[in-house]
Each structure stands twice: as structure tokens, then as C-alpha cells.
């Protein structure tokens, strides 16, 4: 089925278009809107964005696949972006990544079966003075230890379950 943007997203896109001298320049922001709306960017979303901005789908495809933050397939509700670059490596970034993999039972790049978490090995996330670290959405988790990671995972999991309950309630 063809996808449509919600009224709210449409409004957002209208506003975005006023910020650029042409429609193509709004592509990245509109893709962010689309991904927020649909969770990921399957073919239908890609076509919708192409149509909205009057761009060839092939161009949109080329852009989506160039940037690591756009996802063609469904991913976990929480993206755990763990840095293993220089500063984090020196302070145990790989140990944190390994701990996450053991704890969640999936490898980097994979999503837990319940859809709660995806582990992403990241390059430097610009918090090197607080290495090792990870980011999840707008939350930075700094100066990590395995113990801290356990507490964070419990908390994120709780919030995830709660959100799921709320959406269920909202739907019924």
C-alpha cells in the first residue's frame, strides 16, 4: 500500500521547504521526518519522499544509502551507539561493546528479538573526554563501566515496555 505522511508531518515538510531555495536541498531533513514517521525507509517511503520533493527515486536511493543514519529495514526501538574509536578504545570502549553483546545476546549490527535494542558500533561521537561512552537518541551515557551499562539497560528496557503499553492503550 502506498504510504502517506500524517498531517503533522506534512506541515513540518511545508515549513522545511521555506528554508531552502529548491526542493532538493530539503531532502535530508525530509528523510529525517519520514524516518521518524515510519520508523525506517522502505521502498514506499523512498517513493513518497521522491514524489513530495519531485526528485527521481534513484537520487533518493543514492542519498539514503550514502548516510549511515538512514535505515532501509526495521531496527530496534533503542539504538545503542557505542563508540570504539581512539579515545574510547584507550579507555575500554571495546570491553563496553563486548559487555553489551553478551548482555543482550546479539552482536553489533543486530537487533534483539523483542525489538527493544539494536547495537551499533560507532565512530567517535564527540565525547572523547568522557570515554568510554555511548549514545541512545538524545541521551549521552558517559564514563561507562559494565556496571553502569547494566543499570542503563534496565532503565531503557523499562521505558520501552511502558511506551509499548501506552501505544496499546492509545490504539484500543
Amino acid at each position, binding site marked *: 500500500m502506498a504510504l502517506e505522511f500524517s498531517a503533522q508531518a506534512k506541515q513540518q515538510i511545508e515549513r522545511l521547504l521555506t*528554508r*531552502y*531555495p*529548491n526542493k*532538493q*536541498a*530539503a*531532502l*535530508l*531533513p525530509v*528523510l*529525517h521526518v519520514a524516518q521518524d514517521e515510519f520508523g525506517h525507509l522502505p521502498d514506499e517511503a523512498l517513493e513518497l519522499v521522491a514524489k513530495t*520533493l519531485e*526528485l527521481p527515486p534513484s*537520487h533518493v536511493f*543514492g*542519498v539514503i544509502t*550514502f*548516510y*549511515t*543514519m*538512514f535505515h532501509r529495514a526495521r531496527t530496534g526501538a533503542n539504538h545503542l*551507539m557505542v563508540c*570504539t*574509536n*581512539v*579515545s574510547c*578504545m*584507550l*579507555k575500554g570502549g571495546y570491553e563496553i561493546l563486548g559487555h553489551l553483546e553478551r548482555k543482550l545476546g546479539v552482536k553489533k549490527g543486530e537487533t534483539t528479538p523483542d525489538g527493544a535494542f539494536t547495537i551499533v558500533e*560507532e*565512530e*567517535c*561521537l*564527540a*565525547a*572523547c*573526554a*568522557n*570515554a568510554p561512552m555511548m*549514545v541512545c*537518541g*538524545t*541521551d*549521552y551515557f558517559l564514563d561507562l563501566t559494565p556496571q553502569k551499562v547494566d543499570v542503563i539497560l534496565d532503565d531503557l528496557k523499562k521505558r520501552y515496555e511502558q511506551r509499548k503499553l501506552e501505544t496499546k492503550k492509545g490504539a484500543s
Partner: protein
Amino acid sequence: MGWEDAKGIKIVTKNFGVTDSHKLAIYSQRGGWSGFKKALAQPRATLVDEVKKSNLRGRGGAGFATGLKWSFVPKEARRVYLVCNADESEPGTCKDRELLAFDPHLLIEGMAISSYALRCEHAYIYIRGEMMREAKIVQAAIDEAYAAGHLGKEHGTAEGPFKLDLTLHRGAGAYICGEETALLNSLEGKRGWPRMKPPFPAIKGLFREATIVNNVETLMNIPDIVEKGGDWFAKLGTSKSGGTRIVCVSGHVKKPGVYELPMGIPFKDLIYDVCGGMSGSRPLKGLIPGGSSMPPLDASELEVPIEFDALMTDPRIKDVEVKPGVPFDMGGGRKLKTMAGSGGIVVFDESTDVVALCARIMKFYAHESCGQCTPCREGTGWLARVCTRLAKGEGRLGDVELLANIAVGIAGNTICALGEAAAWPMLGFLTKFRTDFEAKLAKAKAA
């Protein structure tokens, strides 16, 4: 002024630690937006001269003189764009993110003043996609500045009416978009592929118009330059680099952090004074002086001042070599030492496996190469693979020379500087820590 005198002077971090420093009310209370007012009363040329006089140099990596860059915009340019590079992603660098989070209004005022000076009517901030938290903070600040009439409203100036629009644009995960021409392509809704230069952005940049790209920290210095004068700013620094310098110190020190310091403070003072010394009992083995693309220094090179020119020329820093005794030629006989880069200083102690560290850096650049140029695409991949196998103790005879040869084959043969960003540290690590690489090879042979 020596760096001792400039201790304690804060320009871009002056509002750090102040409660709600990211809010306009607090920013204005602390003197914010008075530089803008002062600027609008002056002719544009005077402002550009003031910035020239200040010896402000770009804080994004290359240290290019900001006033000089601004003066490249053609007088007859139809339209001018100012773009703030907030894509911070050079490994070891974490200053712009903190600057954006703590003092977004200082950046906005800096951009408003710069836009007036450059005749820009619509400026953009290109913020790294992963920085979702900072994007929220900056957008809220922009909204406040619109509501207060600083943005989006006409102001009377010494040169007629001036009105500025400012748009925050989020990237989507690609290190290469920090390179200014890749950034412009990305902002135009394309893949972030660097462009051939010339034409330089100042002539033909965003949407094919004259464009100035400046780093976050660079632009945040502008309000104080206008308020206190270019001379004041120049005097804070060393002969050719004005102002203060932000460094981000990470790795094996007691007090890692983001510090605004006098330009030209020596590494030794930074590590053993400002950062409280090494975190463990082991001595320092080396450091990366300005983000992972800069050749490392070893423990004997710490007396050197942290300043753009010193790091390129100070005789106390050894030349980077192709092989022992043969200095690397950057072209025209120019030798390579290192560079101040992005201010990301990564300190490592004697316990560090430098070959593994170097392999991690190479893996990064291989991953981030956009693939347009063969020497970079293929070369960075080879550097990563060969360095990784050496690190694992699976190196082969000739691998050390092979690494140097690949690096030499990349440098100078690519569209953008990502090629050098991989080749330079590779050669640097081989020069400064050659015995570590050879020891790995000996281990491999013994096994």
C-alpha cells in the same frame, strides 16, 4: 603577550558553568547581542579588517586565516552564504558539541555579525546527524532569537537595512561531510562527495553562490573580536595566531576535558599541570596532537607550544619519514611534522598497543572514504587491512615498508584531504614508533 598572561581569559567558554547558559535571557543578561549592535553601526569592510587584524585562524582543522578567507568573497557576488560547520567528527575531538550545548546564542550572534559583514541573508548551521540532543538545543535557541527579533527582522545598519534568516540543517551520518565541499553537497540534498577545488567555495559554493564555511569555534570568537577589537584578540595569542585555543584532552590523563587555554601553551604544561598528569602509574608514550588525522608526537616532543605554526615547523619535532633517514616530501621539498588540527589531544601511556591504535585509526578512514578517488578508496582499505594484520601478530615480511609505500601513494593524489588524513598519521606512527611495528613483525615470524 606570553601565554602566562593570557591564563584565565575565556572567550568561547565564558558562559560555561552558568546555569541555563543556553537560554537567551541568560545570554543577554551577560552582555550578549551587544557585539551585534556595535557591528551594525560599522561599515562591512571595517569588520572584515578587524577580523583580519585579530589573527583569528580557523578552528576546524586547517588553521586558515579567517579574515583572509572572508576577503575572497567577490565584491560583485550576487548572493553570499555563510555555513557553520558543526559536523564535528574527527576522532578525539569533542569541543564543538559542548560549545553548541552550552552557548548556542554565542554562535548565533557570531553568525549574525559574520553574515552582516559578508552580506549573507540566509545562513545555515550544518550539524552532525548523531547530535540529536544538541540539535534540539540549537533549534530552541534559534527560535528564541527569531522571537526576540534578532533573526528574521530588518535592522538598520551603517549600510542600509539588513535581515538574516538562519536554518539548522541536520546531517545523517557521514564523517566526510565535515569536509567543506562535501558538506555543501550534502546541504544541497546530495551524497556527501567532496568537490574538486578550484573553484573554492568563496567563489562558487552553496547553490553555486559565493560561500564561506567556518567552524563553530571560529564563529564563536567573532562577537568578542567586535566588542574588544582585533588588536586585543591578536595580542592574546602568539605572533600569527590570535585568541585562545580550545583543546579536548582524552586518553590516559587524570583530568580529561575540554579546556580553553592560552594559545601556545606547551603540551607538557597541559598534561602535567592542567590535566593533573597521567591517570595511572605508567609514563606517557605519546599523543595525538589535533585529532586522529595528525601525526603523533612521542614523549620527547612535549616542550612544543600548541600553536598552528609551531606544530608544523618547531625543530624539536622530528620530521615524518618514509623510511628511517628519508623525510616525507609533501611537495616542493616541504617536510611534514604535524599540525594543530581540531584540538583533539589523545594521550596514551606505555601500556598502549600503538600498532592496534594505529590500525583502529586506519579502519576509521577506510570506512569513511567516500570512494570517489582510487588512491584513497583502495589505499585506505589496504592500510587498514595490513595494519590490522600486523597488530594481530599476523604480519608478513615487508609489511612495515608496504604500509609506508601505500601511504605515500595516497598523499597528494586525491580530491580531498581525507587521503592525507589517513596517510599522514600512518607515516607518523611508523616514524615515531617504528620499533613497536617491528616487534609485532618479529612476533609474527616467531609464531
